[in-house]
C-alpha cells in the first residue's frame, strides 16, 4: 500500500469560462495531514468535489488511495470520509436518524466509534437537524466523516463555525488519525488554523497552485528579518556577498535585511559601522504565505 493518498495530474476544471482549478499537480502521501490553503474562490472546493467525482474535470486526472476518481467510482470513495464545505443535512431527520441512514449506505460505521466521537464533539443527536445551529450541524458533518474511521478524510473548511473548544477537540481527532497512519486532507482559508495541524501545506490562488511547503522545514529554515542600528551610515556592499542575506535596504543609519542561517557573518560585516542595536525576528508563516500571494510582507523590523 505505497500508493499516494491523493494524486492529481494536470487536474483542470472550468465552469464555462470561469476557472475553478487549472493544471493542478498534487500528491498527498499516506499518513500525513495535508492542508489546502487559499482565499475564498481559490478553487479548494472545486478540487475536493473533483476528487469525490461530484463534478467532472475539464481535463487531467486524479486518484485517491490508488484508484481513479472517475473510472473507479464509487470504489475509489470506499475508504473516504468527507465533510462538505457548503452543505445542508436532511432537516427533517434527527442527527441519530441521519447517522442510521449513512451507516446503512456505507457498511463501515461502527456504533461504539460513532458514540465515542459524538460524545467528544458534543453532537446533538436527538433533535431534528432543522432546529440545530450552524455549529451543531457542522459537528454532525464532522461526525459522519470521522465515524467510519476512513483511510482518508477529506474535509472542506472543517473548523468553520466551530467554537474554540470544539476546534481543540477537532485538532486532537486529526492528530489521532495521523498517529494511526491514516491521512487527512483539509482545506482552509486560515493559515493559523492549518499551521496547527498540518504536516504540509499547499497554497492555491485563483485556481492555480502557488506552492507546497513542509511546515517543519519552513520553521527550521529560520528566516529572520534583521535591523541593524549603527553609529555611522552603513553601506550595502559588505553585506551583498554574504550567503543567505537578501533584501538589503539602507534607511538613514539603519540597515534592514533578511537573513537565512546564522547572524554572525552579518554582525562581522557590520562592525565597521559600529552597531548600536540589533533587532531580529522570525516572520510568521502567515507573512510568508502573504509573500507567496504577491502581497508585500513587512521587510522591515520596525
Amino acid at each position, binding site marked *: 500500500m505505497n500508493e499516494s493518498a491523493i494524486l492529481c495530474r494536470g487536474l483542470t476544471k472550468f465552469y464555462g469560462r470561469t476557472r475553478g482549478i487549472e493544471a493542478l499537480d498534487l500528491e498527498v502521501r499516506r499518513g500525513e495531514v495535508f492542508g489546502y490553503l487559499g482565499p475564498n474562490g481559490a478553487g479548494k472546493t472545486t478540487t475536493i468535489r473533483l476528487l469525490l467525482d461530484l463534478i467532472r474535470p475539464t481535463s487531467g486526472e486524479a486518484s485517491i488511495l490508488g484508484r481513479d476518481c472517475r473510472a473507479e467510482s*464509487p470504489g475509489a470513495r470506499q475508504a473516504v470520509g468527507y465533510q462538505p464545505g457548503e452543505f445542508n443535512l436532511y432537516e427533517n431527520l434527527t442527527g441519530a436518524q441521519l447517522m442510521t441512514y449513512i451507516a446503512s*449506505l*456505507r457498511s463501515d460505521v461502527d456504533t461504539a466509534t460513532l458514540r465515542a466521537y459524538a460524545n467528544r464533539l458534543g453532537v446533538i443527536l436527538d433533535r431534528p437537524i432543522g432546529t440545530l445551529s450552524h455549529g451543531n450541524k457542522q459537528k454532525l*458533518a464532522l461526525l459522519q466523516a470521522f465515524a467510519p474511521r476512513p483511510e482518508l478524510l477529506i474535509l472542506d473548511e472543517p473548523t468553520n463555525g466551530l467554537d474554540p473548544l470544539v476546534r481543540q477537540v477537532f485538532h486532537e481527532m486529526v492528530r489521532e488519525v495521523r498517529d494511526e497512519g491514516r491521512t487527512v486532507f483539509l482545506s482552509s482559508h486560515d493559515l493559523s488554523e492549518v499551521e496547527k495541524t498540518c504536516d504540509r501545506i499547499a497554497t492555491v490562488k485563483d485556481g492555480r497552485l502557488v506552492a507546497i511547503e513542509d511546515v517543519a522545514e519552513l520553521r527550521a529554515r529560520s528566516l529572520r528579518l534583521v535591523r541593524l542600528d549603527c553609529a555611522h551610515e552603513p553601506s550595502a556592499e559588505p553585506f551583498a556577498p554574504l550567503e543567505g542575506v537578501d533584501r538589503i535596504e539602507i534607511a538613514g543609519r539603519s540597515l534592514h535585511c533578511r537573513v537565512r542561517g546564522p547572524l554572525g557573518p552579518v554582525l562581522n560585516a557590520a562592525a565597521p559601522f559600529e552597531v548600536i542595536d540589533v533587532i531580529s525576528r522570525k516572520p510568521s508563516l502567515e507573512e510568508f504565505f502573504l509573500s507567496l500571494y504577491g502581497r508585500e510582507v513587512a521587510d522591515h523590523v520596525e
Partner: protein
Amino acid sequence: MLSSIYLKTLRDLRGLILAWGLGLAAAGALNVIFFPAFQKLPELLTFLKSLPPVMKTFLGDIDAVFTLEGFLKMKLFDILPLLLSVIGISQASRALTGEVEDKTGDMLLALPITRRRVVLEKYLALATAVAIIAGTIAGGLIVACAAVGADVNTVYLVNATLNGLPPTWLFIALALFGSCALKTSRHAAMLAGGVVIGSYVFETVRLISPALAGWKPISIFAHHRVGVTLSGELSWMTAAAFVGLSILLTALAVRAFERRDL
C-alpha cells in the same frame, strides 16, 4: 425506515401518501354513499339527455351515469390518472435536482454508492408511493360499498383505480429524467407538467372531435380510460407498454445523472 434510499424516500413521502390516499379514499367513499340520492334525481337525466351531441360524446354513456360504476367513473376514475400523475411529478421533479438545490446531494453522492442506485431507488419509491395512494383509494371504495351494501363489481373498482398507475409511472419517469438532466427542479416540473397537461388536453379534444379518432394509439390518457361496462380486465398489453417506456426513461435518467456535474 432509513435502511435504504428507497425507504428513506418513501418515509419522506409518508405525509403526502397519507394525505392524498386518505383524502381521495374519503372523497370516493362519499360518492358511494351519496350515489343513491343522486340516482333519484330524474331532472338530471333529462338535463343530460338535452345536452348537445359533442358533450354527450365527451361524457360517454349517459344512462350509465345512473349506475354506481358509471357515476364513479365520471366523478373519480376519469380524472384519477391525471391527479396521480400531478402528485407523482410534483415529487419526482424534485427527486434529484432537489438534493442539489437543497445542498444535501454532496454528502449523499460522496458516499461509496453509485448514482445509478440513487436514481433507481428514488424511482421505485415514487412508483410505490402512487401505488399506495391508488391502493388506499380502492380500499376506501370497497369499504364504502360494503358499508352501504352497494351492488357493485369489486374487481371493476380495483382495476379502475389501479388503471391510473401505468401512465402515472410513465410521467414519474419523465419527471425523474428531467430532474436528472435539467438544471433545476422547476425545469423538470415544467417539462413533465407540460407533457401531462398536453396529453390530457389532447385526449379531451380527441374524444370530442371525430377527426382525431385515429390518434388514439399516441394519446397517453386514452389507454387507461375505463369503460363503464369493463368487467374487470386491465389492459395488460398497454400497461406493459407503459412500464417498458418507464424503464426506458428511467435508464435515460440514470445516464443523464451519471454524466452531470452536481
